[in-house]
């Protein structure tokens, strides 16, 4: 029974992912991304990782979607020519082979162990892995700097130089 729930969620997620990458309009792709996020979040919840599921739902389905929509509103949703640069069969073949081989190699990894450790996000993150959190602060600072540096107002007088 549990299997069927998982299967529905994940088939849905993979299907949405496929729809997202073939969608012609980016806005609809963004909606699909939000759906993937919700389905993955559901799976995480079923797995018992409730806190991360919530986080994924709020950040993945919420924040990222908002960011994408905002970015689209700035640049406009260009209707794209869907023909890809790389021949699709080639892309499909290489990715397919790599994914299948990787899956096959990692597959026997499935072995269940009884829970031995902490399973709570908060205690694990804030007690055991607090160093990760500290570095994340630097990381966020870097990201903010990056966005500020890239998006701050245009410099008066700066001009593009074209080579040759």
């Amino acid at each position, binding site marked *: 029974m549990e299997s069927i729930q998982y299967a529905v969620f994940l088939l849905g997620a993979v299907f949405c992912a496929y729809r997202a990458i073939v969608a012609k309009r980016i806005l609809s792709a963004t909606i699909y991304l939000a759906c993937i996020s919700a389905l993955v979040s559901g799976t995480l919840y079923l797995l018992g990782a409730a806190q991360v599921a919530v986080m994924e739902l709020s950040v993945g389905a919420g924040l990222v979607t908002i960011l994408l929509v905002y970015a689209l509103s700035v640049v406009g949703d260009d209707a794209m020519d869907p023909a890809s*640069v*790389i021949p699709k069969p080639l892309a499909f073949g*290489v*990715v397919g*082979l790599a994914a299948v*081989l990787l899956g096959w190699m990692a597959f026997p990894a499935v072995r269940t162990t009884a829970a031995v450790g902490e399973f709570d996000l908060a205690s694990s993150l804030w007690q055991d892995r607090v160093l990760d959190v500290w570095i994340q602060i630097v990381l966020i600072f870097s990201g903010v700097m990056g966005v500020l540096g890239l998006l701050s107002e245009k410099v008066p007088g700066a001009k593009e130089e074209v080579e040759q």
Partner: protein
Amino acid sequence: MAGIIVALVIVLPWAGALAVWLARNKHARLQHALAVLFSVLTAIVSLVLFLFADTEPAIRIPLGKAFGDLTFVPDGLAVLLTAIAAVIGSLAVIFSVDYMHGDAQLGRYYFLVLFFIGAMTGLVLSGNLLFTFFFWEITALCSYGLISFYNDDPKAVAGGIKALIITQVGGVGLLAGTLIAFANLGSFQIADLLAKASALPAMALAWIAFSFLVAAAAKSAQFPFHTWLPDAMEAPTPVSALIHAATMVNAGIYLLARFYPAFEAVPGWRMSVLLVGLVSALIAAVSALIATDLKRALAYSTVSQLGYMVYAIGAEGVFASQFHLLSHAVFKALLFLAAGAVIHSVGTRDMRRMGALGRQMPFVRNVFIVGALALAGIPILNGFWSKELILEIGLEHSPLWAYALMLTGAGLTAFYTLRMVWLVFFGEEREPLHAHAAGLAMKVSLGILAAGTFITWLFFGGLNGLLASTLPIHELERETLLEVLTAILSAPATWFALLIVALGCGLFWLLGRKSALAQGGWLDPFVETSFGFESLNRWIVQVTYQVAERFSVTQTGELNWNILGIVSALLVVLVVLWLGA
């Protein structure tokens, strides 16, 4: 004491190089003075070094596991070559005072020249193969810098890079040989390699021997790497003298002579050496017959004479080869510098435009003739004795056909030498070139070299004794000057060889004078392409560039293709690991 002298002879020119560089180009007179001072000091010290010749290292500095001990061994061979490099080098520097007068970049010029001399002395004195390689590479670098010294001229740039690449390919041979020796012996000491050569696995020894032969051939511009030397003529003429007589090309001969006892037993090695020398001597002599560029003709004659030395080593005549190296260094430096005086004076290198210059510059004419006669092998100049010695040994230790071909080469040498002298200094005036007499510094160095051409053969006995006593492993035969002179003069082969030389001269007098200006006819295409090897070089360069061009397509600059690179690399690594597991 010996340690200090050895250190001085390497450090002095390098210190001089630095001093000239630091003197800045604004103070040209100071630069000239410093260069002359340091090079002459080096020359004096190098002569003093003869007193300290020894088999044991004079300097030993431990450097750590991957580098071994840095040793310098002033044995007879090393001391002789040091002296050649330093003395001829200093004469070239003195000559440069006039030749390079008024040049804007003297700092760079003298820096490279002095650095070059120091590297050469380091190369021959080093008792550690790593440092032999180290100095070997520095000489390549310096020769590159000097050949393309006039770097606004694309021909000079091309000639320089060609010399660099070809000698570096040879350097790979030296590197491989050195490291195979190290991997088997655990030591970089030359003495160890010489002493334990017979204990090495036969296969490894053969690899070392042939790698070193490749290195030597590339450095000494021997077949099949002979293409770079004629193109190196774009250098300022004193540099040509330096490269051809004092430093660069001698390194290859030195390498073969140094390791001869280790490799002589390797099957086929001696024969290969002999053939390399033979082929180089002949094809270069033929090329010199029709060259119209004065310096190019001299360059071909260098390749040819180096061929004689290599041939001598192949015929077990290590000492004969070194003796000829000494003679050649002196008379070839003389020839190049005299040619430099001519070129500096008339502003062209084309012999077809010269002619009858002898009247305008009698001093240069006279010394050039001295050098030319030595090159042709006319008694009693030094070239005669050493060449006869080589031919004598060739008759004894090499197949008769090889000897016969080398003898023909001697005849060709006489022919092209005479042709050069005739075209430049005699005959009728073909173009109204204005020549002025050589300057004082030029005359000093030319005079010293001309005197040397008359007398260096007198040192035979002393050098022979020195080398024989300090190179125990080489097992050189001891002979006094008198013994050798009588041996040479009493051998019928000598008179036969002289006959051939006379024949060469006579042929030129009868036939060549008229047609000296004519094109080489059917020979032309062969010489033009260095007997096909020039086109081989070009082909390699072209293919490399084409492959690069093809490869550059893979850098599409498009994000999607870039990601495909990542994914396909993942696939490949996965497959490799999966199959390997």
